């Protein structure tokens, strides 16, 4: 198509310059009107729900690990490691996310402790990722600004499929930690981590790498795979649910817009996935009001759903909807899914963003 400009996903490149020039960077975003009294009530923090969920989470991790180790060498260990991997490699993402926002618990140190543990499980540098996520909220799916765009355009479907195995993340995350442990941050990382915070990223990476070295040493000493199956490798075999749910947050929707209703998706999910995902399936709501804790998101959803596109009724439905969009993006990368708003919603404002509505699948 004439006029299409190639997307440059680096954070210091041509798209970055354009996003800043056009005012897409650090822009003012659309918000559904919610009375202060209501949003204040929804934002309230409490330790109770997260303490309950964290006790269940830790008990399930320890229980499945114990079962896996007990039955090691037999097929009976497989279901235990299936559960362990799921908790280690997937549910840690939502814990990382909520505690990074500081909304899961009211008590700050509880957020910090769970954040550090979950960051380690995910092989994420707790410092660089905190900053990249702040950028993700400032410039959600703004090309050249957002450091957390999972599927770039045109979509690399093989890469997206491999993400379910954790191989690509593993291949990126571990070397990144080693590089950071040697004191080296990339230009992209330096673009979103303030200089005064960069040394903390190096220290955090050294701690992570030290624990991995200790785990490998233990495995060698014991002449056993068990330490590795418990620490590190679950990032491979347990990551599929994180990818299954996380990809749906923004995939196939608009980019370079400043209305989360256009670039973010809410999906109704089953209770198990919602526990693993800590209600992040209410993702439009989360992006509009990141101060609202995970346990209050269903209530926020009820309050503002009149102004949002109809949620996908299931994970399966969402993938069925997005698949043809991805196929079309292979040939025409400006194509995206524009989700319909209910009659009760305030309309999308064309002047609010520069997206070409003619490119949208309505």
């Amino acid at each position: 198509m004439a006029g299409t400009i190639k997307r440059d996903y680096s954070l210091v490149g041509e798209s970055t310059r354009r996003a800043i020039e056009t005012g897409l960077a650090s822009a003012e975003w659309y918000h559904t009107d919610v009375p202060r009294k209501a949003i204040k009530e929804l934002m309230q923090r409490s330790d109770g729900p997260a303490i309950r969920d964290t006790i269940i989470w830790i008990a399930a991790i320890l229980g499945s690990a114990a079962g896996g180790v007990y039955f090691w060498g037999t097929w009976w260990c497989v279901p235990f490691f299936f559960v362990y991997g799921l908790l280690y490699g997937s549910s840690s993402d939502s814990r990382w996310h909520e505690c990074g926002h500081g909304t899961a618990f009211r008590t700050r140190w509880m957020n910090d402790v769970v954040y550090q543990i979950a960051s380690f499980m995910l092989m994420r540098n707790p410092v660089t990722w905190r900053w990249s996520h702040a950028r993700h909220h400032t410039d959600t799916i703004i090309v050249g600004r957002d450091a957390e765009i999972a599927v770039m355009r045109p979509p690399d479907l093989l890469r997206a499929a491999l993400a379910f195995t954790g191989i690509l993340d593993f291949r990126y995350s571990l070397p990144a930690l080693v590089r950071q442990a040697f004191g080296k941050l990339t230009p992209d990382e330096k673009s979103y981590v303030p200089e005064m915070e960069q040394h903390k990223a190096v220290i955090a990476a050294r701690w992570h790498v030290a624990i991995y070295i200790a785990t490998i040493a233990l495995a060698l000493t014991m002449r056993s795979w068990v330490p590795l199956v418990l620490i590190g490798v679950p990032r491979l075999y347990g990551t599929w649910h994180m990818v299954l749910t996380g990809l749906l947050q923004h995939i196939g929707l608009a980019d370079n817009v400043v209305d989360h209703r256009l670039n973010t998706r809410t999906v109704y999910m089953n209770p198990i996935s919602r526990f693993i995902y800590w209600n992040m399936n209410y993702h439009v709501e989360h992006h509009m009001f990141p101060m609202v804790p995970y346990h209050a998101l269903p209530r926020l959803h009820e309050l503002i759903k009149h102004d949002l596109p109809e949620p996908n009724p299931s994970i399966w439905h969402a993938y069925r909807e997005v698949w043809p969009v991805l196929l079309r993006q292979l040939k025409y990368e400006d194509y995206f899914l524009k989700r319909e708003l209910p009659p009760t919603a305030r309309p999308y404002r064309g002047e609010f963003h520069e997206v070409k509505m003619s490119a949208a699948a309505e």
Partner: protein
Amino acid sequence: MADWVEACAVDDVEEEDVIRFDHGGRTFAIYRSPDDEFFATDGFCTHEKAHLADGLVMDDIIECPKHNGRFNYKTGQAKGAPVCVNLQTYPVKVEAGKVMIQIA
């Protein structure tokens, strides 16, 4: 010479809450603490331009609505990433049911 400016009535701010006050092309945030004291800071987060008046007051902390950056609104101290720069605070007094702030 710093001027005292009337920002709002005492009843305009709920206990453990914050409101926005615009004056002279600038934006401020006026806080009422849980122990019924009033405080004032700059109205925007030092991290990115977000109105702190849309945030959450918890005890002596104001949390920014955009990235959950936290400040002590009594001292202006930034409490950690993603906020690294302290918040400017302003003297406050209450006179005849009005909250006054001293703006330099």
